[in-house]
C-alpha cells in the first residue's frame, strides 16, 4: 500500500504553532519520569525491560529516518510468530520482556 506524502493540509509553521507546546510538555513528562526513577530507592543495577525499551525508543527519535511511531511500536513488540503455550496474565506490559523474562 503506497504511503501518501504531503497529505497533512497544514503548512509546516502552522503545525508547529498548533502542536509544539503540547508535545514539549509530553517530552518533559518523559524526562521527569526518568529523573524520578533516578531518585527511587531499591534501584536495580539494570533498567527494568520497559525502561530499557523506552530509552532505546528515545534514541531512535534522533536518527532522522522518520516513521517514528511505527518503528517505536515495532521496537516494543514481541518479534515472534508462534502462539505461546498458555495465556497466564490477561494484561500486557507495553514492551517485550524477551523469551525468558
Amino acid at each position: 500500500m503506497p504511503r501518501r506524502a504531503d497529505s497533512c493540509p497544514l503548512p509546516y509553521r502552522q503545525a508547529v504553532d498548533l502542536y509544539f507546546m503540547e508535545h514539549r510538555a509530553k517530552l518533559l513528562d518523559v524526562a521527569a519520569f526518568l529523573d524520578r526513577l533516578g531518585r527511587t530507592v531499591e534501584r536495580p543495577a539494570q533498567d527494568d525491560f520497559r525502561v530499557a525499551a523506552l530509552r532505546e525508543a528515545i534514541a531512535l527519535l534522533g536518527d532522522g529516518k522518520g516513521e517514528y511511531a511505527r518503528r517505536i511500536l515495532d521496537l516494543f513488540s514481541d518479534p515472534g510468530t508462534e502462539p505461546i503455550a498458555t495465556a497466564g496474565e490477561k494484561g500486557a506490559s507495553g514492551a517485550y520482556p524477551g523469551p525468558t523474562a
Partner: protein
Amino acid sequence: MKYIDPHIHMVSRTTDDYARMAQADCIALTEPAFWAGFDRSSPQGFFDYFRQLTETEPRRAAAYGIRHYCWLCINPKEAEDVGFAREVIALIPEFLQRDNVLGIGEIGLNKNSRNELVILEEQIALAAEHGQMILVHTPHLEDKRKGTKLIMDAIQANGAIEPGRVLIDHVEEHTVEMVLDRGFWAGMTLYPDSKCTPQRAVDIIETYGSERLWINSAGDWGPSDPLAVPKAQVEMLRRGHSRADVSRISLDNPLQFLRQSPRFDVDV
C-alpha cells in the same frame, strides 16, 4: 456532524453518555461482546449478557434516537478454558436471529495463546457456517503485531470468509498496512492512554487514506471516552480537512461496511 460509533461498550456506560452522544449527533452504534473486567463464572452469565445486548441496550439507545446493533461471541480474555468457551459458543446461534445482531465479535486474541487460537478458529467457523460478518479484537501493546498476523492467518486459513466482511480493530501504525494489504477493513480505536489518540488516528488517515478504514471510541469500563469520534472529527477539521473527508471516515465508511448486513438499515 452526524457520525456512527461502530465499536463502543454501552453496557459499561451511563445513560448520560447516551444523551451526550446524541447531542454530538451520533445516529447509530454497534456494540461487540467483550470482557466485563472479570471472568464470568458460568455460561449462563453470557446468556444474560447476550440478552442485555439484544434487548436492554437497544431500548436505552432508542430513548435518545440512537440505533443500537451488536456482535456476539466469547471474547479472547475468557477463551483460555476451551471447554467453558465451547459452552458459550453453543449459546450464540439462537441469538444470531435477533434483529440487532450484525455478526460474530469481537473475537480475536489477547495473549496469543494456543487455546485462544483454538477458540478463535471455532468462532471463525461459526461465522462461516451462519454467513455472518466478523469484528476482530487485536491484542494490546507488545502482543498486537504478532497477534494481528496470527488472526489474519486464521481467518484466511478458514477459506470461507470474505476479507471485505471482516473488520480488524485496534490497528495502529505498525499493523494498519498489513491489515489493509490483505483486503480486510481496519478500525482505529481512540483511547487516551493506549491504542490511538485522535491525533495519531488522523495521522494514519493522512498516511494511508481512508479506504476500508473507520474510527471508534471502544468506550468501556476503563479509561476511555464515548465522545472520542467527534473529537477526531474536530482534529481533522482543525488541520484543514474537508467536511466530506471527515464524514467519509466517521459516517460513510461505517455505513458501507455495516450495510453488508441486511439488518443494518440506518437512514442518514
